[in-house]
């Protein structure tokens, strides 16, 4: 096994331009193929010919409705959420200098869950265009958590200490999780059940509106991500080493922290907290392409999209007509994956 690892390292001497091109082409093809195939498969048998038959009015065309209203938004949100969580995972791992960090380590997801929970249990509801109560509250909760962690972890004028950041995030995580439990406890039974269901994650959005609401935030986060990969490489050597290689450490840390939190917040608001994507995908990608963030980041976005779409496909077809929550599928894959990693290392 270590010989294979050594060979993999040797392969990384090739110039990065070539490696990047090959990687993007390969993963891109995988993602496109997955996203094209996924809407064709489901728990109900549909006739594609009918689904695309323009002569039948849309309102009468059940096959078309299943394809365009039920499946396509679901696949799209899976791709978006998968890409967002995977890349957020990569960035947080670089920021915290720890490959075991996840997008949920610093409490963003706990804040999002608390926001969603409060709205569900207080029965608050409204909708304004593509925005509705639970996603907005969840996004707001995530923003509050992000703000608190940032404030706790940023000393005056100096770079963030990763230790303090981690401590602040973990503390906030515990605190918000305790609040979530309490809120569930005082809720009545059906509300508590609905809240618990939300925590399992759900990509079945049923229309393009929730996606439209989440896209601006995710696109903004991705735009910032595009600036970061070279800096992330150097940052992972440590803040002092990074500064002496020309990285504006304070600025890079801030950009990394806020963009990754933004991507996570948007993803969780759209589909609830879906775990393991943000750690399994970066690890798998690194096993395949090495650790250079300039390759790992875009590759993770693509592979994350394909991964989550595939997991959701399994979730909705394996035990059809019963659906497994997608968070359960990712956990069932994630758990054994980490066991295997541990066994492999020892």
């Amino acid at each position, binding site marked *: 096994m270590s010989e294979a690892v050594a060979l993999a390292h040797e392969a990384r001497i090739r110039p990065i331009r070539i490696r990047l091109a090959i990687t993007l082409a390969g993963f891109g093809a995988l993602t496109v193929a997955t996203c094209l195939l996924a809407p064709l498969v489901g728990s109900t048998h549909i006739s594609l010919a009918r689904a695309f038959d323009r002569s039948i009015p849309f*309102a009468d065309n059940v096959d078309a409705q299943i394809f365009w209203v039920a499946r396509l938004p679901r696949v799209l949100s899976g791709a978006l959420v998968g890409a967002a969580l995977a890349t957020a995972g990569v960035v947080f791992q670089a920021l915290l200098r720890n490959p075991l960090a996840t997008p949920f380590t610093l409490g963003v997801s706990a804040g999002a869950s608390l926001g969603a929970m409060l709205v569900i249990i207080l029965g608050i*509801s409204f909708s304004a265009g593509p925005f509705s109560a639970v996603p907005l509250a969840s996004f707001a909760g995530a923003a509050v958590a992000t703000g608190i962690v940032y404030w706790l972890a940023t000393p005056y004028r100096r770079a963030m200490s990763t230790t303090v950041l981690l401590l602040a995030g973990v503390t906030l995580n515990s605190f918000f999780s305790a609040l979530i439990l309490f809120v569930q406890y005082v809720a009545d*039974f059906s509300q508590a059940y609905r809240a618990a269901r*939300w925590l399992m994650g759900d990509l079945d*959005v*049923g229309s393009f509106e929730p996606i439209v609401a989440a896209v601006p935030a995710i696109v903004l986060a991705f735009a910032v991500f595009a600036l970061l990969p070279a800096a992330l490489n150097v940052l992972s050597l440590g803040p002092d080493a990074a500064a002496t290689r020309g990285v504006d450490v304070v600025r890079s840390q801030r950009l990394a922290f806020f963009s990754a939190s933004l991507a996570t917040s948007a993803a969780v608001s759209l589909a609830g907290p879906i775990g393991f994507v943000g750690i399994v995908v970066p690890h798998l990608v690194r096993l395949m392409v090495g650790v250079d963030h300039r390759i790992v980041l875009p590759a993770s976005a693509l592979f994350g999209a394909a991964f989550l779409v595939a997991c959701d496909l399994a979730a909705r077809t394996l035990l059809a007509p019963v659906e497994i929550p997608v968070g359960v599928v990712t956990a069932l894959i994630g758990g054994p994956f980490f066991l295997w990693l541990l066994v492999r290392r020892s």
Partner: protein
Amino acid sequence: MAARSKKLVAAAVLVVACVVASAAAQQRRIVSLVPALTEMLFAIGAGPQVVGVGSFDKFPPEVETLPKVGALLDPDTERILSLRPTLVLTYGSQTDLHKQFERAGIKAYIYRHGGLDTIFQTLRDLGDATGQRRQADDLVRDMQKRLDDVRTRVRGRPRPRVLLVIGRQPKTLREIYASGGVGFLHEILEIAGGRNVFADAARESVQPSHETLIARAPDVIVELQAEGMFKSDDLAAEKAVWSTLTSMPAVRNKQVHELVGQYLVVPGPRLAQAADTLARTLHPEAFR
């Protein structure tokens, strides 16, 4: 003279029996954690015996004045014990509670969730436990009669395929819960002249995906909720949420109904009324 003394003895025995019976009745102190069972107790005339109710019990109005002792997740054992009950009505999963009451020498009745037969049997059991068996039997008979009335009303009419929604996220079509093919909601739907689109699901509730909903194509959608969940002016907005699923016959024929009322969701004495309401919704012409 012997006849007269016999009558005297009989009368004395009767008086003593009444005193004993009323004393026994006065000694019955019941605490109920389950809303359905609370309703049942009052419906069979055992209301005076109830000394404490669960936090989510809302009917009948008399329960407002009674002490609240918690519910499924948070039963307040101390509070319950302080009311010195002789009988506590609990959920099946509250095994710790059962053990505690056993040690304290208090009888615990375990609520069984089920369909109409289970509900009727529960009424009879409660009748036995409270000395109101006769009233319980009367109530069961009355409920069965009313259900038969409903069956008769809708007999022979075409039975639409109905999606019975028991929960979802407000204002959006997410996290939809519907009644499966098991349980009292399914049964009263069938009595009310409807066919459950999820009759084949062997569970009380299902959480269908949009794909499944579109594929099942219900003719009618009925959304049930207890009071206090939505404000009444929002019902129109909630109805409108379904309009994106244009291929559904229910949406095309404007057969989306919002029904509000606690009696609709509690598997208790008012379920005949619920069946009646459902029938009026599905077959309004039968009630003119």
